[in-house]
């Protein structure tokens, strides 16, 4: 996952390093207004390009001429400005967009990096690398959040723990339910599945076969029946049989179908899930953000599961969705098999993204 992004981050980092490190060595006249003190080893520049015009404008520039002198002479620091990193940032922007990080998320990351880097003073001689790595890592972590451990979550809630799966059509909800069921069983929990997709032809058969293969009880009604009733029965079954976790499948639906979203709200009222997992696919583009926001608004969500990551290892959708709804990513689906599921740990992922060469 994130391979392309990793490469991009690496090249952007290198570029940032070069631009920032080169700064002190720059020739006095090479870039007007970029350069202030010919004799000093370090140089800083004003954020407003307008100041470029005349030499006399020096004193008016934002950080102030005097302050710069103080910075340079007394503290031996230089200040990183907007212009130093603009090119690298627009590189990063393209990289993020190409990795399917949605427009809004890309904006958020860029402005965080910009905010962290510009104006930050760097002692001459300290590693540029650490300044940049920190800024990028913080920007990514601020977007990806803390993450959540599903096993801890289940342990800390009253049984049966009810987990509801929602999402638009064709993102892989039913397969994900089967995978999560398998994952939980392997971790010593008992699971019951509610076949809540009563709309799509063949959906009940699909989850039923999964249940049979995995040896997990699937509660089902007929096609076209009320999904709330199916899931209610599943919860009743779990209570009666002392089952640890109930996984509720639902029919895929678009966020702009009011009546279908209302149906989901009804399910929510009836079974009162402990966790609503929103399922979306890694290959989705900008729409991922819009629909995640809508789902979050109308029925709520507590966590996100990203499927089909094997299809698109860039995984930008993960960043977009999590950024948009501010909920943690708990699992990623990476293939067609029951074991093709991985818990998602933001810290490890970000560390990996920024680790050395791609």
């Amino acid at each position, binding site marked *: 996952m994130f391979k392309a992004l990793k490469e991009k981050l690496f090249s952007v980092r290198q570029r940032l390093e070069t631009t920032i490190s080169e700064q002190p060595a720059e020739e006095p006249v090479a870039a007007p207004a970029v350069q202030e003190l010919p004799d000093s080893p370090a140089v800083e520049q004003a954020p407003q390009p307008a100041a470029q015009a005349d030499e006399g404008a020096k004193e008016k520039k934002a950080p102030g001429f005097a302050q710069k002198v103080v910075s340079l002479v007394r503290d031996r620091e230089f200040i990183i400005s907007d212009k130093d990193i603009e090119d690298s940032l627009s590189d990063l922007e*393209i990289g993020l*967009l*190409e*990795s*399917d990080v949605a*427009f*809004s998320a890309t904006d958020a990351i860029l402005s965080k990096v910009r905010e962290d880097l510009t104006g930050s003073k760097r002692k001459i001689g300290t590693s540029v690398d650490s300044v940049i790595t920190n800024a990028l890592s913080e920007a990514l972590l601020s977007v990806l959040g803390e993450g959540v451990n599903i096993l801890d979550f289940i342990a800390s809630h009253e049984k049966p723990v009810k987990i509801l799966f929602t999402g*638009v*059509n*064709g*993102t*892989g909800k039913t397969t994900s339910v089967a995978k999560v069921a398998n994952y939980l069983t392997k971790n010593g929990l008992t699971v019951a599945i509610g076949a809540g997709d009563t*709309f*799509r*032809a*063949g*959906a*009940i*058969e*699909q*989850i*039923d*076969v*999964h249940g049979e293969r995995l040896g997990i009880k699937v509660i089902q009604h007929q*096609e076209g029946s009320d999904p709330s009733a199916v899931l209610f029965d599943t919860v009743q079954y779990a209570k009666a049989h002392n089952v640890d976790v109930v996984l509720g499948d639902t029919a895929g639906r*678009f*966020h*702009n*179908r*009011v009546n279908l979203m209302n149906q989901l709200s009804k399910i929510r009222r009836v079974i009162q899930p402990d966790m609503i997992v929103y399922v979306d*696919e*890694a*290959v*989705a*583009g*900008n*729409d*991922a953000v*819009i*629909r995640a926001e*809508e789902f979050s608004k109308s029925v709520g969500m507590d966590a996100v599961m990203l499927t*089909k990551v*094997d*299809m*698109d290892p*860039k995984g*930008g*959708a993960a960043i977009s969705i999590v950024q948009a709804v501010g909920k943690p990513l708990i699992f990623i689906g990476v293939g*067609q098999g029951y074991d093709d599921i991985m818990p998602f740990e933001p810290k490890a992922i970000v560390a990996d993204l920024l680790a050395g060469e791609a």
Partner: protein
Amino acid sequence: MLGNLGTNLKDALKKLAGKTVIDRVAVEELVKDLQRALLQADVNVKQVMQLSQTIKKRSLEEEPPKGVTAREHVLKIVYEELVHLVGGKVDVQLGRQTILMAGLQGSGKTTTTAKIARYFKKKGLRVGVICADTFRPGAYTQIKTLCDRVQVNCFGNPKETDARKIVAEGLQHLKDEVIIVDTQGRHALEDELIQEIIDLNEMTHATHRWLVLDAALGQQAREQARRFHEAVQIDGVIITKMDGTAKGGGALSAVSETGAGIVFIGAGETVEDLEWFDPDSFISRLLGMGDLKALAEKVQESIKEEDIDVNAMLSGKFTLRDMYKQLEAVNKMGPLKQVLSMLPLGGMEVPEGAIDVTSTKMERYRIIMDSMTSKELDDPTVLNGSRVQRIAMGAGATLEEVRELIKYYKMMKRTFKNLKGGEKGMQRLMKKFGRFS
């Protein structure tokens, strides 16, 4: 957010209004907004960059013809370049043929297969479907249920795990004119499955190989389409789930990778929800603004007072006749949602249901209204049970459909009445209605 996008683009276009000389700054601004719009719509990043370069170059270099304003000139260029990107319509031949469906997991192949089967069936051809998805549990039940619903033959065997074997048997078994082979979802990185579809393509001597793509597909679309094309030479693209909010920009990469046009658009969950691809409305959706072609061709002039009597509408005297005209106008201008989005409603809430109408349904409404008398059109209150029955019979529609139309009419009427309440909005609305810019 998306609303803003359309507005930005419109603002940029507005800056060009009335200018006779193309202003570099304005063009650059326009191109930047265009880029944003297209990137938001998931069009491939490289394609966007290329397109904006071309538009910029052409806008600045080409001399606008006499009598054409700078704005119209640039609009025309934008439109032409977008049409170039989107590709033209693809004609579907009616006759003996075999169609192989290909696509990623969860893109909607099976549902689309049923929709296409229904399409050919309605055209009077005998259709048979082979279920070659041996992987996903319930796949056969799904396609069988859908095929039964549209009454076409379906061949499959949920116990068999070899797709090649099923297809071989199916080809022997089915004697229909149109054979559609529904395959298992697969993606570019699954070599074994790619090999499988290559084999299936050879076995079936497929006349067409259609790639089914989810409208929400992002930058990955290009790579996936490339791989599918390499494997089986895709000659048609179907975009599904256009009833959501996704713009379908990813599918454009597929078009440019395969050189194949877009055949159908899937816009709903039932088997009827299949539409022809219309480049104009597709582009307008991509940009989140009204029909660019309509703008480019100065259609605004054709939407005159007699077309839509805004005053009557707002005074609450909105009759079925007005709605008929409105639907006709909508045909020219693109979906109602976008028409409404172009109006300065000042954030007024328009009921979901009022704009939640597909173009197919619009067409049905028009047909039903064609079966009404003048009296009914002018004064819908006269509609009673026996009139509804007569209309339904005349239009070949069900009673429910006619009632639904009346319900829709009432909702529209209420909407316009509320619009009037939105005081200031009305003045501006009337002004704007004349010239959509």
